[in-house]
Structures are given as C-alpha cells and as structure tokens.
C-alpha cells in the first residue's frame, strides 16, 4: 500500500483498470509519450502500447466526438482534457450525443465513457487553466458528474466511472493533485457513484462541499472544533446524480448548512443543493443556507487568484453567521 497524491491515484486507477479490462483505452493531448501535462497517464504508453494510449491531434471537439464513437464499440474510452477551460468545445458532443445516444436509440447504443479534466484553480496556472466547470455538465440530463476530493476517492471513483455503463464527466481538483498524500491500496474496488460521503459527524452545522474546496472545508471544521463548534462534513463527490438524501439527513439533524464551492456563485452547484434544502428541508432549517463561493467574475490570472478563491476563513466566517455569530456553548 503506497502513499499517493491525487494525480498518482488517478494514474494507478487507470493503470489498474487497463490491466484488468482490455477494452479500456485512454486518449487526449500529450498523454502518450509525455505522460500527460499533469502526469496522470505516465507509464501507460509503455505498459499498454500506442493502440490503447492515444495521443490525439490538438482538438477537444474531436476528442469528445471520437470518445463517443469509441464507446459505442465495446471499448471503454477515458479521455483527458488538458485543462478545465478547454472543456467548452466538448460540451456539444457531451450534451448532444454522449448523454443522449442510449435514449435516442432506446437502449440500442450506449456511451460508457469517461471524460477527465483538471478542475479549478490555485496553482498559479495561465489563463483558462483554472475554471470550475461543474455546472456546465451537472445540468445535462443523462450524464454523471463526479469530483473526488482525496487520492483514495479519486482511485475508487475513477474505477467506478470507467465501469459505469453511462457517460461520466470526471472533474479532478487541480489544486489537490499534489497537495497531500494518502494510503491508497490497489484493491480494484470501486466506490459508489451516487452517494455522498459523510466525512465527519457533527451536530451544530452541516458543511457541504466537493473537490478541492473539501480541503478548506476540513480545515475550517478543524478550526471550528477548537471553538467548540461541531461540524458535520459532507463530501458530495458525485454532483450528478446528487445524493440529497444524505445532505437532507444531515441538515435535518444540524438545522444549519453552509455549502462551499470554488465556482462562481450565480447558477453554481451550491445553488442546486440550497434549492433542494429550501424545497425539501425548509422546516428543519434554523438559519439561512449560506453559500461560500467564488465571485461572479472571471477567474483572475495568477496574481489575484488567491483573492478569488474562498478559503477556510471564509467558511469559518459563514459558519459563525449561521450560528448567529455567538459560538455554540
């Protein structure tokens, strides 16, 4: 059992599943000889050859369409899009085809595919490398959208995504690629694709997040614990389908909820969670549902990036507000 960071866990999952299932192929820009700009596919070309590890021409729309085609032929393609801002050209194929082909043919053809991409900022990358893309995909019917927050979850959820019979958009938190390590065992065991993880039980407030912001959320929960505030921490992990049951159960218990996302606030994923609370959990709410989010502005270049990203302090502050500022006795 090795201590892996998140990108190594992604690599392990790919390697492990490619060894187990000869139908798994990976494709994308610079993923072969170069091993991927983040090194997610390092070693795969040598291990599995150029037929199954496909360096494509530089065309994201091509990659998406090709992935749809591959997936209809008994293969299980896993495409990499190099940076999140280059996912936009994939939306046409994902929304108009990947998510629909099963329905369009009433089950005759289907698209067991994965499109992986880094998601979010925090590594001082150039423009268009730091966008948060969840909403664009989570609104599309027929898809699954997953965003792991730890190496172990990246491993288990990616296995699940590859094995899933339907298309999955897999958004990896760029900021966590090398942020910390965790013991990850190559058990070949997948995690479920439609349940949130309760990371920490608590009684005063529910903190709900996913992806990179889970890191700050856990930090906030730690700090709040020192103040005597008991946070229930939920890692949504799968944004679509969304496991509201777990969140509702938690808020039913705590009566307070803060949702944390890096994406711009307006029409972001946190809104969907808050809306469900306002619809199904209103009567158990003691306090407004606060969303701690990125601003509704263009992701700034590196020098102001830190000023854009929410952090633990913002989360602590929001928790104080839902607790009416006064620390819980």
């Amino acid at each position: 059992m090795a201590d892996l960071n998140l990108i190594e866990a992604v690599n392990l999952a790919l390697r492990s599943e490619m060894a187990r299932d000869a139908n798994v192929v990976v494709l994308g820009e610079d993923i072969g000889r170069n091993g991927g700009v983040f090194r997610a596919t390092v070693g795969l070309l040598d291990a599995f050859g150029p037929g199954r590890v496909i360096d494509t021409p530089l065309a994201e729309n091509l990659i998406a369409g090709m992935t749809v085609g591959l997936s209809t032929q008994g293969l299980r393609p896993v495409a990499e899009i190099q940076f999140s801002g280059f996912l936009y050209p994939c939306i046409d194929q994902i929304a108009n085809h990947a998510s629909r082909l099963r329905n369009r043919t009433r089950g005759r053809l289907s698209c067991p595919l994965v499109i992986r991409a880094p998601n979010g900022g925090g590594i001082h990358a150039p423009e268009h490398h730091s966008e948060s893309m969840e909403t664009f995909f989570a609104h599309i019917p027929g898809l699954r959208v997953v965003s792991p927050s730890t190496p172990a979850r990246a491993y288990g959820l990616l296995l699940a995504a590859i094995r899933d019979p339907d298309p999955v958009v897999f958004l990896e938190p760029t900021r966590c690629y090398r942020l910390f390590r965790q013991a990850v065992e190559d058990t070949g065991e997948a995690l479920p694709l439609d349940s949130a993880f309760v990371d920490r039980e608590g009684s005063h407030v529910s903190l709900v997040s996913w992806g990179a912001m889970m890191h700050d959320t856990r930090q906030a929960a730690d700090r709040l614990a020192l103040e005597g505030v008991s946070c229930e921490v939920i890692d949504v992990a799968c944004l679509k389908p969304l496991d509201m049951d777990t969140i509702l159960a938690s808020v039913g218990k705590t009566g307070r909820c803060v949702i944390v996302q890096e994406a711009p606030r307006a029409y972001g994923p946190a809104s969907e969670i808050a809306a469900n609370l306002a619809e199904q959990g209103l009567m158990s709410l003691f306090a407004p549902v606060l969303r701690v989010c990125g601003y509704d502005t263009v992701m700034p270049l590196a020098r102001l990036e830190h000023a854009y990203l929410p952090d633990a302090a913002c989360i602590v502050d929001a928790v104080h507000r839902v607790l009416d500022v006064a620390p819980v006795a």
Partner: protein
Amino acid sequence: MNQGSTAVNRQVASFEVRLTRYIDPDGRGLAPLPERARDAETLRHMYRVMVETRAIDRKAVSLQRTGQLGTYASCLGQEAVGTAIGLAMREQDVLIPAYRDYAAQFLRGVPPQATFLYWAGDERSMQFPDDVPARHDFPFCVPIATQLTQAVGVAYAIKLQRRHAAVLVSCGDGATSRGDFYEAMNAAGVWGLPLVFVAVNNQWAISVPRAQQTAAQTLAQKAIAAGLPGEQVDGNDVIALRQVLGEALDAARDGHGPRLVEALTYRLHDHTTADDARRYRSEEEVKAAWQRCPILRLRAYLTAQNLWTASDEEQLDAAAAAKAESVAQAYLATTPEPPQAMFDSLYAELPASLRTQREQAGARPAKEP
C-alpha cells in the same frame, strides 16, 4: 523543415481532383460499365430501390401535408446516393448517416416505417431490429456534422479490434463548413483509419447555395487539407457511385486508409416540409436539375440496353405504391409510448433520485399530444 534546395521558390507538393461518371444525364453510357455495377440484375435492383425509396419519400411528404407526420426531410433527387451506399456496404460495416440516407438504411434492414416514426417524434424509430446489418449503425444525426468525429472513434475501434470492416459516414455540403468535418478527416488521416467520408453535395444547405459555403472549387479537394485522397463522383449516376463507394470501402476495410468522396447531386424538394425553397432559388434551376434526376437517368439507360420494359415499370410502380402504403399503415398503427418512457433509456439503470420524477411523469393527466 525542407532544406538544401537552392531554388528561391520551388514546388513542394501538388494535387489533383478527379470526377467519375459512367452514364450521362441522358442515360448514355460513357464507357463499359465498371465491375461492381455491370450485372443486369444489379442494375435493375438499384433501379427498383431508388423507385421504391421515392415512393416512400413521397408518402412521407403527403402524410406531413395532411397533418399525420411532423417536419420531414425529403431525399427527392438524391435516391442514388443512399442506394449506392446501402449496396456498397457489407453487413459488418458501420453506417453513420446524416438524415437523408433513407435508401441506405432500408437496404441495411431498417423498416421504412421507422423513418416515419422518427419524423413523427418517436425515439423507438432508432432502435432498429436486432437481426439486421443496421443493428450496429448509428441513428440519424440532426446537429450538422457532429457525426463525423464519432465516425473517427468507431473506425479507430475497428482498427484496434482488427475487425475487417469499414465505417461510412455521410454529411451534406453545408456540413463541410463545420470544423468537425475537417477535424474528423484530419484525425482519420493521422491514424489511417478504415473510414469513408461521403459529402453529399446537393448544392444547397437550406437557403445557402454551395458557392456561399466555401470558395473551394470542389468539396473533394477539402481532403487535401487532411492528406487524404478526395474525389468527385456524379451523385446522380448510381453506377458510378456504386463503383466509387465500393472501391473506397474495400480499400478502407483492407487497411488502405480513409478517403473523401464528394457526390454531386441536387435536392429537388424543399429543405424540409417546413421550408419553402421558392424563397431562395429559381424554378428554372429546379427544372434544370430534374433533367439530371438519377431515376430518369438509370431508366433511360436500362431501357436503351433493353433491360427494362414499360411493363416492368408498371409493375414496379404498383409495387412501390403498395409498399409505401403499407409502410404508412404500419406507422399509423404505432401508438405513442407512455410518458415514463422518457426515463427508461436515460441511464442503464435509473438513478434512485430520478424515480420520483418518473412516477410524476406517469401520473400527470394526459394532454394533447
């Protein structure tokens, strides 16, 4: 980088585009017929398929005109293309059509009532029977050109899996303006995929004439951008089409890589039943195009060769009309799916969180369809 030459300005590459045609618009043979379309029964079969396709097509239009079908895209004037595609393909090949390749689908086993059902707005139309060649073909593709990159994936899979098969993907002249068209050809070239691109140049993309889509002299030359062979064929000469597509598919299957075939034809009908082509093109143009109709042309040829008689024609007309009528009846007898069907093929297994929505859909009072 080229080096070592001493010329200031020298030629580094040259290309050409050629056009194939075996019978002229008046049905006169220009040369001995080619291998793949020379046998009398083959010729008669092609003729019958085209005529039957036209009868079914006309039936669809008339159902639409009488409020019994939704918007319909006619293949009038383009029957040779679908027919040649359907005949040139083998069972194991994969057809990835645009939306006017009806004859090809029929030849690959799609029941014509599925076409009607499609334009009526019923997803079961693209389910296809599971014992026909079309069972692994793609459904119609409405977002123009988006099928082309998918074809690359399918062809890549065929090559990786060492299947002795080819993909034929078709699109219109309008579709060649989308980057997808070029991205797909380019990728197919890089990997030498078993993939035949057919650009059905019917001269119009709704109201936009071919000359406004591109300054290129031919669509075939667009293959040069991807390093592929590109050729033109008279798309109203089913014999030439059958030959050229057969060669292309055989080459693809045998590992000789992709190519582009531009089929020159003409859309005789409005773009769809929702369109009125008189707004943007002259009646003279359409009249002139009728002179090049693929059906008239082959009939003239067959008649001149004594391969077709007036009584053959009479019989065929009656049979085609009967067929079209029975297709219409089969279609009209199909009742809509229940509302819950919108959930039943969404995922392999419906996520638990959507079960309530499925129930709600089923529980809503029925409304005007």
